[in-house]
């Protein structure tokens, strides 16, 4: 593009700040954001309430009692807080991002914005970061509410490692939200119609949550031999099955959270844990230190962050090549 050569001057991110702040303030004051936050908080508060009631009746000493608030599945509700989040964060991110670009286009404000001295780079990145910051604020609020409720109802302060794990959990949750935000923005860039982009993003979300586990298990069944000859064969199949499942960001988030909030987690997958503990001389039930837990879930975290960046990069490339004048 030789004709553009002259205009490629200065930082591509000039004007990023104003776009980011405007986007953030728009989100935070919007009714949609209020509804979404309320939705998520209600969905999160219910399991936490039940879980807290259950934990209060438990007398056994637990080194990581505070973290159990997040992970224990209450009897009255087949849903723990993290599972609820696994489900809700994508919805929130899609809600925030599905119309970020195409609504501006439809309202014919895009060309007006771009006539300002700022590049498209800054616009898209500003919108993305604004959405991410909004998500972060909402998740932080939710997280603090849960921690506060835990403090109030359990009456004991969390220990240092528990706080550290909680904060790491928050960061992973934000990264997970970022992936779905990037997906929603990609669709909002591709499709001019907001309804189509919302439908596509929600469709992808449903696909990963409902269809993908079935497809993955069907594929795994296809590869299952008629008879297992060794433990290693079982483990290999298990690894293959988890590799398939990990294509879904929900699985990555679930495993990362499991590793963080369940310090006893040393391997993922039922058989892996069983085999490691029984045949390889491991002492079961011992917690891992935080750094080892982080190393364990590092691939998952890497996958989430890298996926977020790559998805954003694709959205960016599509957006840059698009005709925005209308």
């Amino acid at each position, binding site marked *: 593009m030789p004709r553009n050569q002259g205009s490629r*001057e200065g930082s591509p991110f000039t004007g990023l700040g104003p776009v980011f702040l405007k986007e953030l303030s728009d989100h935070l004051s919007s009714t949609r954001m209020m509804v979404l936050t309320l939705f998520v908080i209600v969905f999160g508060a219910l399991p936490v309430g039940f879980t807290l009631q259950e934990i209060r009746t438990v007398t056994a000493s637990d080194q990581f009692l505070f973290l159990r608030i997040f992970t224990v599945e209450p009897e009255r509700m087949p849903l723990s807080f993290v599972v609820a989040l696994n489900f809700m964060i994508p919805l929130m991110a899609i809600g925030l991002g599905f119309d970020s670009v195409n609504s501006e286009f439809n309202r014919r404000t895009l060309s007006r914005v771009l006539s300002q001295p700022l590049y498209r780079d800054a616009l898209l990145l500003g919108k993305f970061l604004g959405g991410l910051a909004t998500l972060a604020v909402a998740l932080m609020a939710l997280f603090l509410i849960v921690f506060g409720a835990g403090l109030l109802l359990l009456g004991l302060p969390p220990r240092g490692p528990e706080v550290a794990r909680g904060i790491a959990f928050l960061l992973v949750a934000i990264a997970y939200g970022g992936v779905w935000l990037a997906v929603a923005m990609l669709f909002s860039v591709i499709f001019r119609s907001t309804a189509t982009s919302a439908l596509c993003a929600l469709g992808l979300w449903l696909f990963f949550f409902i269809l993908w586990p079935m497809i993955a298990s069907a594929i795994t069944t296809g590869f299952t031999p008629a008879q297992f000859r060794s433990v290693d064969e079982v483990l290999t199949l298990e690894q293959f099955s988890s590799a398939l499942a990990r294509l879904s960001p929900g699985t990555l988030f679930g495993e990362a959270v499991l590793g963080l909030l369940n310090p006893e987690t*040393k391997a993922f997958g039922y058989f892996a844990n069983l085999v490691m503990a029984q045949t390889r001389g491991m002492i079961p039930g011992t917690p891992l230190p935080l750094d080892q837990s982080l190393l364990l879930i590092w691939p998952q975290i890497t996958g989430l962050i890298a996926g977020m960046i*790559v998805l954003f990069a694709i959205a960016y490339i599509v957006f840059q090549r698009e005709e925005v004048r209308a």
Partner: protein
Amino acid sequence: MVMLSKKTQGSKMRRLIALLALVATPTLAALPVLAADPPAAPAVKGLWLLTDYPSQTVRPGEVANIRFKLQNAGLVPETLALSVDGVPAGWKADVLGGGQPVAAAMPGINESTSLTLRVDVPKDAKPGSQTITVQAKGANQSIDLPVTLTIGTEAPAKLTLKARLPSLMGTPRSAYEYTLAVSNDSGKDLTVAMSAQAPANFQTSFTEGYGTNEISSIPIEAGQSKDIKVKVTPPRDVKAGNYPVLVKVAAEGATADQRVTLQISGQGRLALSAKDGRLSGEAQVGKTSDYTLVVSNDGTAPLEEVELSGSVPTNWKVEFNPKTIPSVAPNEKKEVQVAVTPSDKTIAGDYVASFRANAKGESSNADFRITVTTSTLWGIVGVGIIAVALLVLLGAVARFGRR
């Protein structure tokens, strides 16, 4: 039919025997006839009162039990009234049969009835001899048994104690059991109390010959002997050497003792621990970690050829340096380096490695808790992947950016 044939057979046999007897008579007639009388018939017939010691010594204030028998040889049994004559004033004499006072006895043919003459000697009995006559009286016969009791100083209670094997050898952990025979050489039943004098921290216990109950005294009848067992347990940390134990028995002023000896040879005792007492360590996946173990000998004899081994989780490697220690003297400590390599596929967590030291008959093991950490290499790879993603983004910005 069968009966009939047997009968006829029997009569045939009888006839045959008669025939044979007829033929044999001239030869047999020359021999004396042997089968005429019953074989065990005693030469004498009669009734007797018998005792082993018809003249005894008694002490004033004591009870003398004199055993005697009423023997019937070849007579028709009859009731024999028993009575005691010649009992001095103040004395009391009873005939006891089966522990009860009896007034009559009836021994069968060629049998005897055991009886006891119980004489209560008063405290103020004067020295001298007294004759008490026991009389058994039947319908047409009467027999007497005069028993002479001499008041005087009776032979004092006397005990003897003898060990079968007075000296035993072993290690500090062996069981030292001595069998001792206690005999009551006096004329009366005694309850014998036992005690043992052993070096400090040695434990002793007494049991009856083949019994398991611990006892402190044992009744022994007059003239009898009983086996008792002394079990001596030396303390574990006893030095090699000879240790005497004096076993004493005592009853009514009589004592006897016997010295038994424990010849304790030294024994090595192996102990395995970590150098600073910490039985845990850290290791990285696929990398060798060294720990220092200490082999010590808390025993009293040197340990030879101490061999070290370890059991670690599957596919782990464990190496000892040195693998064997030629000798560990008592109270000596020797360090051993152990190199543990977790396998490449190990996942982070806590594992148990069990180390073991073996010498002849001695072993000791130490469970080591190894915390395995994974390498941070993959963490760096993860950061690299994120960096690549960012580079892609920056490439896209450079290629398509600033529009």
